[in-house]
């Protein structure tokens, strides 16, 4: 009896030892391959498809625009796709794995880590989204109750939808809303709570800082959660203004008044060692549906 236990422990420990040694030696290999990794590109390798979580604004826009849906608009992303709810995990995964493909908000794209591919020949830039040649984009929404009685919230909304506010939007790499007028607010005193989508949050942070310069009397609290919490909390009243990186659902739109404050592009990203520069909408679709599983078959 004791012997059996002992052997079990021993075998596990020796497995660990082998694993540890294996890891050590692979460390060395890695260092070697990193330098000459262009030569190691093997187009026959399986594609690692990385996707966002079901229900995310980014994923919703992506599947809709690339047609990764069936006749009834059901999401058909392959079940073999990795899922993450985090932009930086998406970028890190793609930058670490030569054969990965993913998609992220254009505002978060870091070109030193990953490469954004052209879609149907159009580069993922703010200009191309504005002139319509790059079609993969989604709205940033904010919503508040129509009968909300908070002068700071109303004034802050007016600021976002002014020339000054939209300058901040374009300065951060997002696409501003057309036709706005200069800010002519009253700079009221008081406080308000803004909260919701983590995708909108970085932009909102900049907007709040810019607003504080024109109205130092106001204090604005920013809660970074997610689109749904943003909308439900705005309905319940714990947020004055809710943020969502997707369209408002019907039941939310019944209680809230939504405003598009900016448009954000979605970039399709691959590893920097991937020779692919240009993909068509159909190619992206077939990768994400799971029809194509290796890079040489694209």
């Amino acid at each position: 009896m004791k012997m059996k236990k002992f052997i079990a422990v021993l075998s596990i420990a020796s497995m660990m030892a082998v694993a540890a040694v294996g890891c050590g030696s692979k460390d060395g290999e890695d260092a070697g391959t990193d330098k000459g990794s262009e030569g190691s590109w093997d187009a026959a390798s399986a594609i690692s498809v990385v996707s966002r979580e079901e229900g995310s604004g980014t994923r919703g826009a992506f599947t809709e625009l690339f047609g990764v849906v069936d006749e009834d608009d059901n999401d058909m992303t392959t079940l073999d796709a990795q899922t993450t709810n985090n932009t930086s995990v998406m970028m890190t995964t793609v930058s670490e794995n030569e054969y990965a493909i993913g998609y992220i908000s254009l505002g978060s794209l870091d070109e030193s880590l990953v490469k954004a591919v052209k879609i149907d020949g159009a580069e993922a830039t703010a200009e191309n989204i504005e002139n319509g040649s790059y079609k993969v984009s989604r709205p940033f929404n904010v919503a508040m109750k129509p009968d909300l009685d908070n002068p700071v919230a109303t004034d802050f909304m007016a600021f976002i939808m002014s020339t000054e506010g939209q300058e901040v939007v374009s300065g951060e790499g997002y696409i501003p809303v057309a036709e706005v007028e200069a800010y002519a607010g009253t700079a009221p005193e008081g406080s308000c709570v803004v909260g919701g989508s983590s995708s909108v949050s970085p932009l909102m942070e900049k907007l709040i800082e810019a607003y504080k310069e024109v109205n130092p009397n106001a204090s604005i609290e920013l809660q970074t959660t997610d689109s749904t919490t943003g909308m439900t909390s705005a309905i319940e009243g714990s947020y004055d203004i809710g943020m969502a990186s997707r369209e408002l659902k019907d039941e939310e739109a019944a209680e809230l008044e939504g405003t598009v404050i900016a448009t954000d592009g979605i970039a399709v990203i691959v590893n920097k060692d991937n020779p692919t520069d240009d993909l068509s909408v159909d190619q992206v679709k077939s990768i994400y549906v799971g029809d194509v599983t290796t890079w040489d078959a694209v």
Partner: protein
Amino acid sequence: MSNKTTIGDKLRTYLKHPGSFLVMLLVMLAAIITFVVLIFLIAYILINGVPHIKPSLFALEYTSENASVVPALVNTIIMTFLSLLIAVPFGIFSAIFLVEYAGRGNKFVEVIRLTTETLSGIPSIVYGLFGMLFFVNTLDWGFSLLAGAFTMAIMILPLIMRTTEEALKAVPDSYREGSFGLGAGKLRTVFRIVLPSAIPGVLAGVILAIGRIVGETAALMYTSGTVAQIPDSIMGSGRTLALHMYNLSSEGLYMDQAYATAVILLILVVGINTLSSVIARKLTKA
């Protein structure tokens, strides 16, 4: 029992008992694996974080430019303090009840033990959901440090109870008998004799608990909220360091600052651990 066993003596024993020798090797191997992994992890954090620690990181106010950690640091300390304030008395008192007062085989004791073990097994995300449904919505505290602290207190309660219980049990019965023999009452015995001898064990639990509070993200995300400022009162919302780090890293815009924050978090944990061991030493001496 001589302490002067030479290496030669040891080797001779091991030659006679090769099984023991193997076991000893396994123990050493396991310890080496643990500490190599540990050193690797810490080195990884330091290498990625230390170069990005800049004075601007310690500005008093958080802005999107400096990604300052000071508000989050203060919030973490407040959160830890509040949670411990709620959980430690409850934890110690219930452990005292279980060990010193409740009789053996008491049904109620079994219920408590079962619920404590259940509590310690509940995933933090479930605590987060519960905290949001109960403290934030039902009690209408909103996203606040207090809601976060109560959620964390429930989370660390079993940890403190368990360690205190073990520590109390380890106090030899002769201490209690001696105290009773000298005419001390039960309460006096518990507070003057038993509890002081159990302090190091209790502190071990508190240290583990602090580690959990400081490192917690999932449960606090839905309870204390994510405002990057020091709130005016404990009814205000504020994010702790770990949550701050999670938020910095989640959109991929502030990775450098996120690693720097991680270094500060590490330093904080080391600081807390050192402080509590100093206190433990003081207490046991007195």
